């Protein structure tokens, strides 16, 4: 289903069977491209736009933009591990801003799920520009699997061992 990467965020959502809304979503609007959906980590590229600036004096990107990207990547790394489509909701997100990102460079965002419980999934994310060993921001995300009216597919699965 995903052997022709890179694909746009909108195409990814469509192929994942996620219902479209009245707005394509912030990630699609930012021009996010899915470059890898490998089990060991998802990688997305987002091209620079002037609206991303946070501090015009230092000419660096806004921290909130980085949180949006990290929340999205932490989230889809969990969605990709769900055995059946379901909604998830961020429970906890922690971001460390390691360095500022100068305007003009593409952003690479990675996300990896490192634990799926029955109710909760845990993931990590990072943002870098050119060098993966020099991240600008890193995140830890915790997500509830399933939401009101859209329960966790893992909660109803007998196959899962005891976990969160």
């Amino acid at each position, binding site marked *: 289903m995903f052997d022709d990467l890179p694909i746009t965020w909108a195409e990814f959502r469509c192929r994942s069977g996620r*219902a479209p*809304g009245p707005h394509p979503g912030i990630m699609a609007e930012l021009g996010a491209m899915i470059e890898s959906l490998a089990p060991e980590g998802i990688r997305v590229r987002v091209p620079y736009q002037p*609206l991303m600036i946070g501090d015009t*004096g230092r000419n660096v990107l806004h*921290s909130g933009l980085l*949180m949006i990207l990290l*929340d999205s990547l932490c989230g889809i790394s969990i969605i990709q591990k769900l055995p059946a489509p379901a909604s998830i909701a961020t429970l906890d*997100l922690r*971001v460390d801003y390691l360095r500022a990102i100068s305007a003009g460079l593409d952003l690479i965002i990675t996300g990896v799920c490192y634990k799926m419980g029955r109710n909760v999934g845990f993931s990590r994310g990072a943002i870098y520009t050119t060098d993966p060993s020099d991240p600008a921001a890193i995140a830890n995300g915790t997500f509830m699997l399933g939401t009101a009216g859209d329960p966790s597919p893992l909660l109803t699965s007998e196959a899962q061992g005891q976990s969160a």
Partner: protein
Amino acid sequence: MSQPPNQTPPNLQDVVTGDISGLFDAIPFVHWLGLTASRDAEGVLCVMPFSQRLIGNPVLPALHGGMVATFLEATALAVVVDAQNDPDARCGKEIPRMISTTIDYIRPAGPKDTYGRAEIIRLGTRLATVVATIWQEDPARPVARANCHFLVASGASSASKS
């Protein structure tokens, strides 16, 4: 695809020494999202007017977790800048830079306007620690809360003070 921000955004440093209501206009990304900050009798009140752009899950529907995070950080920033504006404040006066943020998502954030206030836990010569809380209809029922650390001075002259 997306509208450009103001052609000539105000200089952030000028706003830091001025009226808090102009702060978000000086931050292109926050301006693009339409956030506002103002002062009232209780302090600084921030608003994130609803728009479809803010939706992360169109099925529920619910606001994007990153939008909630952005609004919490912006609210925390506004309160720090407002405190820095006090000419008598003995604290770092540089434009605050984010160090880290930890967010608790407490309730679903629905497709409606969101409001935020923040409390400064400590504002020193180098570091500001702030707790921000946001809600939608009832301030007693917050949808999310954040603990934010900002650097408010970075020069060597202040390296030993805070």
